[in-house]
């Protein structure tokens, strides 16, 4: 059965879809009053999907769902599966962070988890997209889920404002992205990535249309990864969204967009002079993102907002890798994957600690630096975890954050992009200041007579989430090799397909 074979190749997607649909059905047929079952059920689904994604690493690349004489919209290869594994791991941790938050925010809904799963489906489709339209579809599936998740606390002022801003800006950017794809289609007559690479080498009519199309496409992606100057929505949305969702957005959406970008650049732009036109533009965005993101993070007083800007700046570092990749440096592909993995764990961990510390009714006040005074002594394990995440985000050894930067920078050096490396190091040095400020407020500020911790924080899910994130960050720092080797293997599969 051709159809069953195809489904077997994308088992992670099938499992996720099935889990999500069953979740929705269970929700409406109101089985079980305690909402924790929904979290556990989605965790099981994510774990099974993760297992299949890892299993798919070894399989031959497969082109799926191709119509007669048409290119395949879905390519299930090692790269797509590895990226899927990263995003599934991120979603897993995000789900672990959620029950505690949902309980405090009283926004209980089983749809919450289903929407997360649907978004992940979109992300995986992006990672496996064989043409630009499929990429667009994946992007929208992911985005629509996240729009709703942002505003899931319907009665909260900040949340609904964030959701509307995100939706309007997101749809607006989608318009540009789609117009870009239309132009590329117009100039080359195709949207399939391998075909695109062939068409762009041949002399094509209407080069300005092609270049405009490429630029608009990249603008759309730049919006999703919150690269400067398309980042303005990000801080507001990150601040307003439920904290676990902020984490999920910061890592999942970004990772998916970057993974898709890597595939587009590696497969679609390969060896093309036309596409080389856009490299300086990516470089400029990378410069701007690193510098502006870091500078703005410094002046923030709200930790959640600071983390939002920090996530902007991290998009800049990953963009360095994309520039190197576009210049033909192949090690950059694995470097970007590694960076995204490390970034997933450290960012989700940091947001997890925020979930831990947020007061029930504190709103923005409970997210200020001062609210964390002396927390490291009141809860030593939490303090250690937060220190690990901050040190990792700052890019110091021996954490995954350090190696992420190291791989990115060294691939950029090989590609001859010394200027970007310089900016990247400068940015990391600046960033140490605001990350360490968190640790300082954890440890160095006088301990007010310690009462109980702000929330009743005996959630096993939350604890498990933080442990996984910490372990992930440290494992990547201590055994970076195994993961980077997997990344290289996966990147090779791109060229086979």
């Amino acid at each position, binding site marked *: 059965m051709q159809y069953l074979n195809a489904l077997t190749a994308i088992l992670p997607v099938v499992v996720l879809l099935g889990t999500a649909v069953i979740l929705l059905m269970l929700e409406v047929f109101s089985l079980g009053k305690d909402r924790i079952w929904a979290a556990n059920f989605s965790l099981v689904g994510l774990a099974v999907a993760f297992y299949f994604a890892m299993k798919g690493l070894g399989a031959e690349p497969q082109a799926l769902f191709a119509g007669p004489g048409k290119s395949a919209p879905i390519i299930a290869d090692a790269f797509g599966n590895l990226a899927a594994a990263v995003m599934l791991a991120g979603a897993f941790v995000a789900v672990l962070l959620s029950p505690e938050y949902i309980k405090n925010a009283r926004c209980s809904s089983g749809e919450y988890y289903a929407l997360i799963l649907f978004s992940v489906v979109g992300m995986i489709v992006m990672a496996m997209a064989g043409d630009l339209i499929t990429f667009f579809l994946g992007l929208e599936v992911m985005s629509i889920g996240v729009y709703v998740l942002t505003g899931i606390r319907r009665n909260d002022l900040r949340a609904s404002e964030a959701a*509307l*801003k995100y939706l*309007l*800006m997101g749809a*607006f*950017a989608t318009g*540009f992205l789609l117009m870009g794809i239309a132009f590329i289609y117009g100039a080359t007559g195709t949207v399939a990535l391998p075909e695109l690479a062939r068409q762009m080498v041949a002399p094509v009519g209407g080069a*300005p249309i092609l*270049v*405009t199309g*490429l*630029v*608009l496409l990249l*603008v759309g992606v730049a*919006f999703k990864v919150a690269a400067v*100057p*398309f980042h*303005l*929505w990000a*801080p*507001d949305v990150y601040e307003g969204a439920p904290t676990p969702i902020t984490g999920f957005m910061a890592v999942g959406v970004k990772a998916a967009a970057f993974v898709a970008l890597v595939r587009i650049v590696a497969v679609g732009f390969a060896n093309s002079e036309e596409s080389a*036109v*856009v490299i300086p*533009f990516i470089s*400029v965005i990378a410069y701007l993102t690193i510098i502006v993101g870091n*500078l*703005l*993070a*410094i*002046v923030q007083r709200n930790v959640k907002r600071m983390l939002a800007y920090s996530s902007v700046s991290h998009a800049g570092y990953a963009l360095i890798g994309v520039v190197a990749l576009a210049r033909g440096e192949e*090690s950059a592909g694995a470097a970007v994957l590694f960076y995204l993995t490390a970034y997933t764990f450290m960012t989700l961990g940091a947001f997890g600690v925020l979930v831990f510390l947020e007061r029930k009714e504190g709103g923005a006040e409970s997210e200020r630096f001062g609210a964390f005074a002396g927390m490291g*002594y009141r809860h*030593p*394990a939490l303090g*250690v975890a937060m220190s690990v995440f901050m040190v990792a985000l700052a890019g110091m*050894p*021996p954490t995954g954050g350090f*190696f992420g930067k*190291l791989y990115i920078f*060294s*691939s950029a*050096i090989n590609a001859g992009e*010394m200027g970007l*490396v*310089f900016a990247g*190091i*400068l940015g*990391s*040095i*600046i960033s*140490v*200041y605001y990350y*360490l400020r968190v640790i300082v407020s954890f440890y*160095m500020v*006088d301990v007010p007579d310690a009462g109980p911790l702000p929330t009743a924080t005996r959630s096993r899910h939350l604890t498990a989430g933080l442990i996984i994130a910490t372990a992930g960050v440290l494992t990547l720092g*201590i055994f*970076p*090799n195994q993961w*980077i*080797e997997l990344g290289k293997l996966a990147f090779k599969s791109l060229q086979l397909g």
Partner: protein
Amino acid sequence: MIKFSSLAYIPLLPLIGAFVLGLWGKKMERSSATIVALSTVLGSFAITVIATYTMVKNNGTPLQAVLWEWIYVGRYRVDLALGFDQLTAALMLVVTGVGFLIHVYSTGYMEEDPSYWRFFCYLNLFVAAMSMLVLGQSLPVLFIGWEGVGLASYLLIGFWYSDTEKADAGRKAFITNRIGDFGFLIGTFIVLGLFGTMDFTQLRQAVAAVGPTDAMLTTGIFAGFSVKAVVTAACIAFFIGVTGKSAQIPLYVWLPDAMAGPTPVSALIHAATMVTAGVYLMCRLGFLFTIAPDALVVVAVVGGLTAVFAATIGVAQNDIKKVLAYSTVSQLGYMVLAVGVGAYTAAFFHLITHAFFKACLFLGSGAIIHALHGEQDIRRMGGLRKHIPITHATFLVSTLALAGIVPLSGFFSKDLVLAFASERSASLGILGSVGAFLTAFYMSRLYFMTFFGELRHPDPHMKDHLHKPGLSMEIPLIILAALAVVGGALNLPHVFTHTDGFLDRFLGPVLGTKVLSMTATAEYFFMAKSVGIAVAGIVLGYVLYGRGVPTKAAESFVESGPVHGVLYNKWFVDELYQNTIIRFTRFLGSLAAMVIDPWIIDGILVKLSSGLVSGSGRLLRKPQTGNVQSYAAVFVLAVAIITGWAVW
């Protein structure tokens, strides 16, 4: 290379100690916290001794422990490997040995602090990070330690965090060290870009394989530059890192402020070990600096200037720890100067002897401060000789060693540095001699004002309830003083023994050997001159401060009217001194302390750079209005600019 996997335990033991103390220290008995802290460091010391013995047994073949395969960058591989060669052995013995003594001392010094466990947690963390720094076989591993010691130092400077001034000091240390780190990372990446490796052994081979260094590179990212130019750039970048960590001009400012931390910390981190990390780095990368002569000139000049500059400031200080801090900056200047003239072994020799006597001085000052219930101003001290005799004796020995009196350890090491410096260039030699004179002078001033005369403390009963140092504080002092006396034997000059010094032979395989080219006579003459300069400084100190207070002779002479025939000439000399040398150096010192330091360095370097960062941050906030349509407008504008630029 011989595998010796126990090497890993050297950093691991203190790390476990820090971990245990950090998580459970609060609930522990004070005695069990002490046992954890001390036993782990002692264990590290023991392993270091065994490793040194093993290495020497094997004819000096370096030991190696590959913990795991760590990084693949491009085609190249860096293992998380620890190496143990002669250079490592020398510094590790100091770090763990002196580190252990200071741990012992701290049990007495910190006994009344409520956060006893936290202090030892940080201190253990420091020892672990420092061991990592010294044992690291490649730049990234070294960088772990480099950052780790910075973090530990930052935590310890701000240990009494309730005090804002002290927290500020921590911040200052932090910012200046970040500037230094920037240099370090840039240097690392240049090296990676040029040689494609970050492992010291491979790097050494790669450097050796480089042909003529003036030839232009034709491939790689540095095509169009000569090897020499690129290596010089890398060395300068590393040196920026060194000026941060080892407190050289212009980034030295953090070190005096770092004295806000507890005194044992000043002794261990800010005198004996961490601040020497920069010197260690340059020795480790000596093969790289050697092919970049231009960078070495910069190193030498900065080192020489720092040596003199810091010494002049030391003259004008009244806080006992500040005097020692500037003295440390100045002595680090000597080490850097030695590296700059290519005398790596001399630099390392001075590093080791300095660790002995300066740690002893700091611990002594700690004992004094402890005795006087926290008093640090030398104008309120005096006459302590009688009250705390052991502290006095050890302080005296170390002062003489620092001043460079024969045959104490400081004499041999400083003389060697000066000899190499003056062989390289007369002006460097003069800089060094001026610094040596000033050193002898301010140290004798400090010594006399502290121990001679009568106690001038405002509390008249202080004499009766002095806090006498206990055994745990005195034993480390005695051991360190003894080391300060005999430390010179590590590397006796060639003219004495007609053979190479022990350290020369020991470190030769790593650092190469460099011998003085002057004749034996000239060398004796040079030594005599050095001792003469030191004695002159001490004598001047004695004349002016011998009674424990600044002599009022000059003032009383002026008060009693015009010239008194018989005394005229005598006091003319005194006044000349007073008006010229002393006042001038005081003037220079206070100028530096009052103007250059807070305005130029603090103002321009620290405030301006942090102001620039936060100012531009505020400016960039402007588009972040919260209005979604203004976001869309920025979006459209950006798209228009980029599309226009890409298409046309």
